[in-house]
């Protein structure tokens, strides 16, 4: 199936908005900007739409996070996921099969108890489960690793390619140009303003540039002279052969630092992190990563021993010190916006797209994304989120 929504024509010399990066973030933002009535928007993508992390992720969707900042922002996104297929006119295959944050120790269960209480205050629908309830919900799990957890019944997963295609197609229908195989090589600025971008297909003038370059976001910000305090990391994932349904909810395990779900097609898709996440820009799979995933998933679901893997792959993400995204304007450079630093950027795309579009269009940063500013990173004023299954080692 050809990728929908891709422009075939040439590049124009001027646009009102240039978005660097055709991942789910750049495409969702382009769609939302056009939905607000902005015209002359283009998305420049070095490869093809979805070739970055957006086509390589674990496709999980939840808002059951521990901090107020994460939980409220991602809940706005989760609510959008439910009706996204209807809105975009293309099935993103969102399946609200439920999302379980699995606790394997008493300490982890206490942590879960803490954020389940916060969810109640925030109006999120989650339940704190004990070991027996988790075993009923997911009987395939190794009972030794089940102490309890937080369960979000309307979380789940979608299909990553379908979501990228849906946004690209919906954006293109509103006149957005998505140009594949067009790499941004420089950003022109003058007197604290953005003037345009240089690309492998020529120069473009524009007053607004958005950095949505995923694992290359730091390089792109650097082109504008904006130092981005991020490091690039590789995440790896595996997929097994198709098996009859044995796991209904999506899940994240705090103990093993892993996440997985069984797709409608029956494959188990998931990834794990090792204790120290080393900076890497390679898209190669590592044997270390493959063994870590195989061993942990077999520990989590013992009957997976002997199941064959179909594929193993890697993707890169550019992460901040608190693992939260960077969203919004850059104070010293007018017309330059950041939509990067994403580790959970698949599930976050619907809300990020609409809220950042509002910020760009109206000039006011909406409250839900205000905490994710670049200023917080510069001030070292980090967001504390303790339900993540990725880690920078010291977190």
């Amino acid at each position, binding site marked *: 199936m050809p990728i929908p929504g891709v422009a075939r024509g040439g590049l124009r010399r001027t646009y009102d908005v240039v978005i660097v990066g055709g991942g789910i973030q750049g495409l969702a933002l382009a769609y939302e900007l056009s939905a607000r009535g902005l015209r002359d928007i283009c998305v420049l993508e070095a490869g093809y739409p979805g070739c970055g992390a957006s086509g390589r992720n674990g496709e999980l969707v939840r808002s059951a996070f521990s901090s107020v900042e994460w939980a409220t922002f991602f809940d706005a996104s989760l609510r959008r996921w439910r009706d996204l297929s209807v809105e975009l006119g293309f099935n993103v295959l969102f399946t609200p099969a439920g999302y379980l944050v699995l606790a394997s120790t008493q300490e982890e269960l206490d942590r879960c108890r803490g954020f389940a209480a916060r969810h109640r205050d925030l109006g999120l629908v989650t339940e704190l489960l004990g070991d027996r309830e988790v075993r009923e919900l997911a009987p395939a799990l190794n009972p030794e690793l089940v102490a309890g957890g937080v369960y979000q019944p309307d979380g789940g997963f979608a299909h990553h390619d379908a979501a990228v295609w849906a946004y690209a197609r919906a954006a293109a229908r509103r006149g957005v140009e998505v140009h594949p195989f067009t790499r941004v090589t420089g950003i022109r600025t003058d007197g604290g303003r953005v003037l345009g971008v240089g690309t492998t297909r020529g120069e473009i003038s524009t007053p607004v540039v958005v950095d949505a370059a995923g694992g290359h976001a730091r390089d792109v910000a650097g082109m504008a002279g904006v130092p981005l305090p991020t490091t690039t990391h590789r995440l790896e994932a595996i997929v097994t052969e198709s*098996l009859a349904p044995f796991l209904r909810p999506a899940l994240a395990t705090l103990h093993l630092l892993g996440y997985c779900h069984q*797709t409608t097609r*029956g494959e188990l898709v998931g990834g794990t992190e090792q204790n120290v996440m080393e900076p890497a820009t390679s898209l190669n799979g590592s044997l270390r990563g493959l063994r870590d995933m195989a061993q942990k998933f077999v520990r989590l679901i013992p009957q997976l021993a*002997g199941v064959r893997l179909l594929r193993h792959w890697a993707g890169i993400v550019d992460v901040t010190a608190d693992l939260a995204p960077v969203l919004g304007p850059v104070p010293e450079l007018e017309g330059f916006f950041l939509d990067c630093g994403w580790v959970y950027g698949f599930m976050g795309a619907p809300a990020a797209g609409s809220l950042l579009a509002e910020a760009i269009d109206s000039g006011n940063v909406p409250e839900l994304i205000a905490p994710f500013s670049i200023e917080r990173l510069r001030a070292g004023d980090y967001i504390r989120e303790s339900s993540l299954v990725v880690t920078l080692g010291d977190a």
Partner: protein
Amino acid sequence: MNAERLDFRFEGGVVSGVAGQSIGSALHAAGVRVLSSSFKYRRPRGLYCVAGACPNCAVRVDGLPGVPACVTPLRGGEIVERDRRSSVMDPVPDRISRWVPAGFYYHRLPRRPWLWLRTERVLARIAAAGRLPDPDAAAALLDGGFEERRVEVVVVGAGSAGLDAAAGAARAGSSVLVLERDHQPGGFLLSEPGGATRAGELVTAATGAGAELMLGATALGWFEEGLLAVATRSGLIALEPGRLVLATGSYERGLPFADGDRPGVMLAAGAQRMLVRDGVRPGGRIVVITDEPYGHAAAALLHGAGIDVSVVDRRPADAAHADAVDAGVPVLAGRTIAAAHGRRSVEAISVVGPNGRSRLPCDAVAIAVGRRPADELLLERLYAGSVILETAPERPPGVEVAGER
């Protein structure tokens, strides 16, 4: 062959085969054609490449799924089952298939999300029908070991090129390890009469010079740590090769035509291997589809085993007849296959040519339309880390390619 007879269980009954055969050939000899079924629509599938290189013959052996029957030697006493029921036994998926064409769920269902939620559950039941391993079989695997090894020269593939390269490197004084996925060395030699003997001589030359040969060892992939991961029955080995010789040979090409996945439709070297290596006739009446000289050679070999064989050659008559080897094999030139017929396995094919369409009854089809290099490991090594293939990479130092491609 008066080799030892071995009994095993298949779907509740007892089947007997011969020592040295693969499980797949033994089942074929016993008349079993359907070994697995396709994803989603569950079309019946059976032996196709007979080289461990396609998904069609995966069966469940002693509680473990996904075992390629065509390259797994028969031990006797094993319990073999189909992992998924095909639509022949359970026609629902095939019947609903006209309502669920490929990709339908992207376009038809977005306006009715509730319908997707229901469809999703039904699809999961139909499409995802592989079974998990039996708990005991799974538990037994957990003892598998992990070992790291440095070897001066690693040769992947024990065909004639690999074995020859191994002998040469060993004679020159290097430590050499030859990896072979199959349980028998020889590669394409095993499809030729006398090939096993020739393979034996090559093995003697290589091991005599000091090379080590590891059978049932699949080189899984090249990893960025500079390691070649190898899966064996007893665990995982991470090899750090000083030099890597890729002698992985080639795959036979397939040919697309209607119902071309029916059991009985095979690749020609696979059909030959079944006959020569395992002593099992792929069929009683075989049509070879070809446009290459080796298709005619395959036809002659099969005919020599007493099989009723004809050749459909896609080229014009002069080229087709020039390559014909065996006067007892009729050649239909300037024609090609349009469809296979038969519900469970092939019973006839349709052949089209300038004079229209005709039907040939047969119980097997052998496709001989060329080969392509088995170059996955080479490509992995060459394109390591690249995302977008803008330029052709150079061959990295320390990697050699051996053999005919």
